[in-house]
């Protein structure tokens, strides 16, 4: 049943591209809806997913198959937590990107940092970001990268 939570998210996205997944998304949504209205889920979706995964493992990794089959509820709970955890960070990253121009303004390692923090951005203004104006004529065309080091930007 817990897995339906993951399924509804994943299948809704995949459902944009294929009708097959739209049916699964509907089924998992129904299951989630019943769950939040305190009724037992009528769908066998979780059972089908468990069987499918176990079947894939049964020949090459019989012990792993057995572990998966027996602990499927726990595994699906872990995957649900992981999904919602990563979903939280993704949303935060997107928000940061929109507001500050980088998905993680406090670090330089964010792989989704598309480029440069503008010195005039809210973040720089708020943090008093020391913008070095390397080779550019302030104040009209400077940008900061993740660590607020100014690089040449586009004037205007």
């Amino acid at each position, binding site marked *: 049943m817990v897995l339906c939570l993951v399924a509804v998210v994943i299948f809704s996205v995949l459902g944009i591209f294929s009708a097959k997944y739209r049916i699964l998304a509907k089924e998992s949504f129904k299951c989630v809806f019943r769950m939040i209205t305190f009724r037992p889920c009528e769908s*066998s979706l979780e*059972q*089908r997913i*468990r*069987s*499918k995964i*176990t*079947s*894939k493992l*049964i*020949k090459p990794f*019989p012990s792993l*198959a*057995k572990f998966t*089959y*027996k602990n499927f509820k726990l595994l699906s709970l872990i995957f649900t937590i992981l999904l919602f955890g990563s979903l939280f960070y993704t949303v935060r990253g997107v928000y940061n990107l929109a507001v500050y121009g980088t998905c993680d303004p406090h670090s330089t390692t964010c792989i989704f940092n598309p480029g440069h923090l503008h010195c005039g951005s809210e973040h720089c203004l708020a943090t008093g970001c020391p913008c070095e104006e390397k080779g550019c004529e302030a104040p009209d065309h400077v940008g900061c990268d993740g660590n607020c080091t100014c690089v040449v930007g586009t004037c205007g």
Partner: protein
Amino acid sequence: MTTTNLEKTRFDFPAINQKINGRPVIYFDNACMSLRPKQVIQAMNEYYEQYPACAGRSMHKFASKVNEKMSEARDIMANFIGAKKSEEIIFTRNTTEGLNLVANSLNFKHGDVVVTSDREHNSNLIPWQIISKTKKIVHKVVRSKKDMTFDLEIFEKNMNKNVKLVSMVHTSNLDGYTLPVEKIIRIAHDYGSLVMLDCAQSVPHKKIDVKKLNVDFVAFSGHKMVGPSGIGILYGKYHLLEEMNPFLVGGDTVSNTTYDSHTLLKPPEKFEAGLQNYAGNIGLGAAAKYLDNIGRENIEKHEIEINRFITQNITDIPSLSILGPEEVEQRGGIFSFNIKDIHFHDVAMMLDNIANIMIRSGQHCVHSWFNANKIEGSARASLYFYNTKEEAKIFVEKLKEISKLR
């Protein structure tokens, strides 16, 4: 059946000659629906391509051809079950409709008793539950013995002069067990009761002679005997059919009507309301011919042989329990089972995922038996003449792999 004959028959079934995900198909769900040979498909296509018209109503060449083919199909079906005459054969949609037709057309009155077994398909249970309310009849259920065989003693104890009908499954779809119908019919007739047999799982797999059995009604479906779906047969002794009122009425059931009266045709027409499933009827005739060519004695022997092979080779799976009598001969072509701690739906899905082995799982429309015995359900492999020992070998192998998951 010899291996060469078997290989030849397999060639007739397009569905088992295909591969899915690069693997062959192993179809073990024949109790639900059998596959169809090319001969049946061709017979139906011929109708649609060459003479797709009404029988009985029109006078043109197409109509005459349909008439001829329909009457031929009826004759074949009468022969197939040993009926005295073709007029005793009523074309229905399926077994369920046949059983319902009798339930609704027999002249039941308050206090009449209907006796069934405890392993009836819903189709031979619900009609009696409803009629016990609407017509105030009494429905009695004969419990099986502990070993799941029929209890003739209890049955006889339930019999009395008020029993109007004994309606029983011939071969159970639950476990393949065949009830001792010769004795049941004899006892029932001694008490003046009629007997109806639900032969959905017997007619396709074993030779049935309604005359020899002296049974009053028999119902079965086309789709379980390599025939088309949406077509079935109700056999009834002619004098009984004559006395019964039709359950459905309308076009093709009457010779004349006025604004306030009608004249019903004789059986079987009076029971075949509306335009018929001509392609289905003709296809069913072709299916019966096909089975007669193979011989149902051979079919029965072959299925038991494969079931024996499976039963003998699963003995080293201690977690596997078989539903039904211990002896294979008593279970025919059905292997109904559970693996401890592994849900029957999981077993079915994994067999399908791993090796395209198609079986059924659940309560097989016999919920009442599962509820009474507090068993959640079972997985069920059901065999037919086109199944092979090699397929059974793969099935056993995969069951062993799955059983290790617990």
